[in-house]
């Protein structure tokens, strides 16, 4: 019953039931809008806006049928595949490069560290909209437009300061005695990083992986600017093709596809969040 003290509830069956009931009640409110969207995907398209009814007057799968028709001969599976390729490569690149940079910032001392740290934080402060055109020109000079390189290069080069900073915060929370004693035993920086730091900041790495996956999965602006050929489109670009001002938007298909697009992200989250539970025990290392 170690966990007891960390969580809000106490022991006993009654309080456990009360906990579940409480959380479920809260969830009912939080999830209502999503349930509404899920239900809306079975409504005729015209019934979606302006009707608050949760359940369709007449359930139809027409919205899903239209989604599975694909766009100009490109099957919907293709868009999922493109999104998956981008998301997985983003995760690999971001976790690896951010962890390396974070270790340097958190544990190593070298000239210019503070300056570079300040530069890194300042990249968080500038709205990306004003960077789009200069960045586009860089990739265009390199003849990389309409490839996935512009979307992935930054991921492999630790350009997301958010994650570097996140991992820095976690590493700094690890007792320094660990690396010191390893170093006394003759370990070099790489083995300290690989054998001690990485395993211990797993929650941060998992968090980084989850966020990178989701953000890449939902990213609209990057693919919009850099990709032109429709069969390279990821899901968010395919989604907007159900919207049109003059001939009318197909909100039914839009929402059906949004729901389908949620499935992989939920699975990814469910799978990886388990590693957050297991956690890291630093017991016996301190004091």
């Amino acid at each position, binding site marked *: 019953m170690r966990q007891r003290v*960390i969580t809000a509830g106490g022991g006993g069956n009654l309080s456990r039931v009360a906990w579940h009931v409480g959380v479920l009640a809260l969830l009912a409110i*939080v999830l209502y*809008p*999503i349930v509404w969207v899920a239900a809306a995907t079975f409504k005729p398209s015209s019934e979606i806006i302006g009707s*608050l009814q949760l359940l369709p007057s007449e359930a139809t799968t027409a919205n899903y049928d239209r989604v599975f028709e694909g766009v100009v001969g490109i099957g919907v599976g293709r868009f999922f595949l493109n999104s998956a390729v981008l998301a997985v490569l983003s995760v690999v690149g971001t976790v690896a490069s951010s962890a*390396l940079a974070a270790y340097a910032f958190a544990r190593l*001392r070298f000239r210019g560290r503070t300056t570079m740290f300040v530069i890194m934080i*300042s990249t968080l402060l500038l709205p990306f909209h004003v960077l789009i055109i200069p960045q586009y020109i860089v990739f265009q000079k390199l003849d990389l437009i309409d490839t996935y390189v512009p979307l992935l290069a930054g991921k492999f080069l630790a350009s997301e300061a958010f994650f570097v900073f996140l991992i820095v915060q976690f590493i*700094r929370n690890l007792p320094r005695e660990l690396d010191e004693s390893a170093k006394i035993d003759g370990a070099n920086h790489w083995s300290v990083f690989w054998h001690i730091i990485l395993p211990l900041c797993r929650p941060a790495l998992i968090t980084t992986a989850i966020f990178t996956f989701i953000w890449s999965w939902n990213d609209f602006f990057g693919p919009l600017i850099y990709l032109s050929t429709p069969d390279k489109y990821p899901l968010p670009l395919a989604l907007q093709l159900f919207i049109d001002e003059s001939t009318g938007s197909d909100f039914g298909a839009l929402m059906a596809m949004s729901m389908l697009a949620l499935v992989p992200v939920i699975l990814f989250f*469910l799978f990886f969040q388990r590693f957050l539970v297991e956690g890291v025990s630093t017991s016996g290392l301190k004091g």
Partner: protein
Amino acid sequence: MSRATITPDRSAEVYTTERTGPRKRARLPGDGLAGYLFLSPWIIGIVLLTLGPMLTSLYLSFTDYDLFNSPEWVGLENYERMFSDARWLRSVEVTALYVALAVPIKLAAALAVALLLNGKRRGQGFYRAAFYGPSLIGGSVGVAIVWKMMFSDDSVVDQLLLTVGIDTGGWAGNPDFSLMMLVLLAAWQLGAPMVIFLAGLKQVPRELYEAAEVDGAGRWRRFRSITLPMISSVVFFNLLLETINAFQVFTSAYVVGGPNGQPAGTTLFYTIYLFDRGFGDYRMGYASAMAWMLLLGVGLVTVFLFRTARGWVYYSGDSGDKR
């Protein structure tokens, strides 16, 4: 396990001032090369992808640049114009209000949920995914539609308010409530800080709680004197990043309120106005100046937060470093 280890120290200083005293160097020699090696991907990235475009935008902020023709140098004109631009002033006001409301509400909710879901319970994975759910959808048109529906004039929310005598006529169309609607949207999508809090809670050594329990500390006391200090680095991270992000709120607000910040400009956030100027009106020089003005403003807030952090953020790993 003395209580002393959990008192906050001043180690956050390491970010703002170089602490490479002679004694330090004597103790930890030769990190230089390793540091640059570990940092090399980041250095390449910053030079190739980030710094160039950033400095370009700084340069453009002193020019009149319409995207298609060469920029023309105008000096400080763009910066001066902002202060007499009524919409710019409004966007600052709207954004500041939003930051002040959304950040504390979202963080408090995220921390509460994280505490609730921390620990071994049946179905914990499901619950976490469920609370994360709203954040998974991102800022698509679908979200905009749903959220407006939830607060429309015949929605549950509005009907409930009516029974206590508040007639909003639907939040989405009411200038007095539209901002609040977006604040709630931010709080609804609390997944990111929640997960970070959860990860932080995992780092708290259980022995501390056991020791505290032996000492007879109550639940609140344990939260105040163990949990909070031990996750303070994560709290700081979330506070800083959520603040920075809130200043730059864009996607969700754009799909709900459009480039004009409907209704009646009450959701005209800073970056929405910036984007509208840059890509709607082709005044990228002005937009760049706005961006750098924002960097300056948020930079000040950031420095301020780092300064206060010295007083309350605690890093286990830096404690051995001291003195």
